[in-house]
């Protein structure tokens, strides 16, 4: 065992903010108990928001509407480009417009169950409650959701649930919701309530006297490193799926903000919970820079199959019906192709591991629309999925109306993130984490169309209520200046790190390290994990890190627009975060949701949870680089949804 793997267990961590009482009343109670800031005093409070995706954009706009002075950052050239924009499928809400038996309680139930009982009940219930308001808010902003001929909103069903509660805007729901938030934010920028810094990346957190008081950020155009101060800092910087190099994340999505916050004292919870999305376009070669998702909604009408025979290389249309294995329909007759993502992904991996995968390298399964086209007609299929089919055709040069699509799982979302309490506050006072950056609501697996819901719930409704309490309790904080020793230390560390990256002048590119790390993580910390593999990965990561600091080559200087430097600096953090992910995966010797330990499965190969030992959220405390972290457990109590073996058969 490496020294890193010999972690210690510290005091349990508890969510002290969620009130007692019936789960349905907790949010009301909390909002009532939370202290308020007098509207006239809000102008005097500055809040930093890092990121402009669904969570960050909505939070920035809403805080500014409330009267706070918001200073907001995004690494992109415009807040409208945050990666939330790429979400395709839709957003869940317990509106029950279909009268199909949906309710807040059912959404709550589905989410806890879908998360394989590793999420906090009070948070999830609040999420389900707020889901209803989100739709109202977005419609009021002019988000063009799909509508029926009567002018009312259309919904569809999505993986893992049996009701139709997903609101959508063709295959571009994330885009439309993000533009809604972006427009609300733009309105506040014009009003002077939000000071936006685009092309500016947060590189570290400033903690003064134990409280988050600002950030260090680099202007990506000039290279200038600046400090920004505030009364509270909100991280809305998204997930860390890019640790795997190949993922559906945007190329520049990164973990620097959350990892630096972790290093400054914020606990990191459940880092091993990553979601592997079942329907992505398979990779074509070593040049592959990222993977493209095909919306899960395709599983509503497409049928997934592989040939029954091993190594069957006939073109799909020549394989007769009785020689095809519609394996999801076979194994899970009641949910069929609509099983949750983790299950669909693993099933695809299993059939490919058996040697029945299709396409180059045998890393793919068919997603076939022949039946759907026959049933509804091509026009209807085109209306529902046209843009997705076009995208597929463009990338693969195959026509999915004629030939079945080939899909394969890919890293898509990270359920883990900074540990937060009910108020979305991390363990560093004054530091909040919202959206994918926190760990709170999805447990070990996120249901489709729930990421948008959570991002907007956090940004529009939860944080703007809970941050008041913190600011009201810390009304007059001493101003921080650049001369403060804590600030000088952080700035110096940041500058040293960048200078060192530039100074190594080795012989390997940033991408080559990123790819090496990603391949290692995909192999040992991907869809199926074993103790042996994780130990192997933990043994190899320090070596990659050493080599990185010896051989990295970053051309140019720090005082200019330098994309290689940006990249290399992000990899520095991936190289540390990857280690924690492996350790977390190693310590959780059970299978749950997206975390599948081969040692822990039922006789028929399903994930076997071990509730007696692992019914907790693992919150890790950073000690020092390369040194074993400290584990703090947050026990999960299930009063309303009692843990059962998930069954989608």
């Amino acid at each position, binding site marked *: 065992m490496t020294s890193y793997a010999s972690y210690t267990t510290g005091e349990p961590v508890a969510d002290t903010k969620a009130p007692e009482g019936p789960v349905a009343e907790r949010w009301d109670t909390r909002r009532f108990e939370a202290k308020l800031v007098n509207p006239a005093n809000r102008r005097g409070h500055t809040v930093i928001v890092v990121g402009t995706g669904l969570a960050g954009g909505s939070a920035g706009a809403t805080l500014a509407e409330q009267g706070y002075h918001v200073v907001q950052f995004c690494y992109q050239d415009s807040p409208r*480009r945050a990666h939330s924009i790429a979400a395709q499928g839709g957003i869940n809400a317990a509106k029950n417009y279909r009268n199909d038996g949906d309710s807040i309680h059912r959404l709550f139930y589905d989410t806890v169950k879908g998360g394989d009982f590793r999420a906090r009940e009070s948070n999830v219930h609040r999420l389900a409650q707020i889901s209803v*308001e989100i*739709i109202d808010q977005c419609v009021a902003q002019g988000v063009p959701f799909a*509508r029926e001929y009567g002018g*009312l909103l259309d919904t569809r069903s999505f993986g893992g649930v049996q009701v139709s509660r997903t609101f959508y805007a063709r295959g571009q729901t994330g885009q439309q919701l993000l533009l809604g938030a972006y427009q609300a934010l733009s309105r506040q920028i014009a009003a002077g309530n939000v000071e936006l810094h685009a092309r500016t990346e947060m590189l570290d957190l400033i903690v003064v006297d134990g409280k988050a008081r600002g950030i260090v950020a680099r202007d990506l155009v000039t290279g200038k490193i600046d400090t920004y101060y505030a009364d509270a800092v909100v991280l809305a910087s998204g997930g860390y799926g890019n640790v795997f190099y190949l993922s559906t994340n*945007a190329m520049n999505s990164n973990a620097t903000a959350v990892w630096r916050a972790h290093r400054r004292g914020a606990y990191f919870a459940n880092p091993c919970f990553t979601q592997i999305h079942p329907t992505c376009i398979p990779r074509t070669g070593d040049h592959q*820079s990222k993977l493209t998702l095909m919306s899960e909604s395709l599983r509503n009408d497409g049928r997934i199959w592989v040939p029954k025979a091993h190594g069957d290389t006939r073109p799909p249309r020549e394989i007769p019906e009785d020689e095809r294995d519609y394996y999801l329909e076979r194994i899970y007759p009641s949910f069929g192709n609509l099983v949750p993502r983790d299950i669909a992904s693993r099933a695809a991996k299993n059939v490919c591991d058996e040697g029945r995968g299709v396409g180059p390298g045998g890393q793919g399964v068919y997603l076939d629309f022949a039946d759907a086209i026959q049933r509804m007609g091509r026009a209807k299929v085109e209306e529902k999925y046209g843009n997705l089919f076009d995208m597929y055709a*463009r990338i693969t040069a195959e026509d999915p109306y004629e030939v079945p699509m080939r899909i394969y799982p890919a890293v898509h979302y990270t359920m883990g993130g900074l540990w937060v309490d009910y108020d979305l506050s991390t363990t560093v006072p004054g530091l909040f984490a919202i959206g994918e950056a926190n760990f709170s609501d999805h447990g070990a697996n996120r249901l489709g169309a729930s990421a948008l819901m959570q991002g907007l719930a956090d940004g529009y409704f939860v944080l703007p209520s809970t941050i008041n309490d913190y600011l009201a309790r810390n009304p007059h904080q001493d101003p921080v200046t650049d001369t403060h020793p804590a600030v000088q230390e952080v700035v110096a560390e940041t500058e040293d790190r960048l200078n060192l990256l530039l100074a190594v002048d080795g012989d390997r590119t940033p991408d080559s390290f990123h790819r090496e790390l990603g391949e290692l993580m995909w192999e040992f910390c991907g869809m199926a994990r074993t103790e042996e593999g994780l130990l192997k990965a933990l043994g190899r990561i320090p070596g990659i890190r050493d080599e990185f600091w010896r051989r990295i080559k970053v051309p140019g200087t720090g005082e200019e627009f330098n994309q290689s430097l940006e990249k290399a600096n992000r990899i520095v953090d991936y190289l540390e975060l990857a280690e924690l992910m492996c350790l977390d995966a190693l310590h959780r010797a059970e299978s749950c949701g997206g975390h599948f330990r081969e040692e822990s499965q039922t006789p028929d190969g399903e994930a076997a949870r071990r509730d007696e030992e692992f019914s907790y959220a693992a919150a890790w405390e950073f000690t020092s680089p390369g040194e074993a972290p400290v584990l703090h457990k947050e026990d999960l109590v299930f009063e309303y949804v009692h843990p059962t073996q998930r069954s989608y058969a």
Partner: protein
Amino acid sequence: MKLTLRVWRQPAADTDGAMTTYEVDSVSPDMSFLEMLDTLNEELILRGEDPVAFDHDCREGICGACSLVINGDAHGPERTTSCQLHMRSFQDGDTIDVEPWRAAAFPVVKDLVVDRSAFDRIIQAGGYVSAPTGSAPEAHATPVPKADADFAFEHAECIGCGACVAACPNGSAMLFTSAKVNHLGVLPQGAPERETRVLDMVDQMDAEGFGGCTLTGECATACPKGIPLPSIAAMNKEWLRAARKSPR
């Protein structure tokens, strides 16, 4: 495939630039255009040269970051974004010219990267519905005819990449501006601010130094999301209506 690239290199905003020639080998037809540039950059880094800077992020054709003029066409020969263009659209041995968006309102930052913040300021001028969080009525309170919802969506699809400006011989942002004006203008939620929205957004568009529209149609041809040219006529109508109606 073996290709010759002629790429616009400009170290910084205030320096001169020039087309520089590079040879790239072993290009796979399955590569995206940006992946081909990635391989060039990997080589340049190892040779100790400055890699080519270009904007990109989602590489799925939706974030609107990528912005290359390829052989004189914004986003290249196919109707898509630069990131979704694949090398199978080219022939072995081709010479390909890669340039940044060209417009006074989009100054070059470095190499192929331009500053498109003018678009953000156009949206800030009025491209929104004033609906502060919490103020929303029940979503079904106002039905929206499906045709209107579809019209709104068609225009809301704009990704703000700026290809319309890059393709326009006048560097005009009319298609971009009209997409937002039409998206919000047709919806009942956007109706109360219809007049101020179009007047303010057009004012800002003019103030940013974009050119006027001479209806050459290049913008709509280049638009990866297919925002139609009549969108501009619809905005003109909206503007004239607003100018008549509202005491400016």
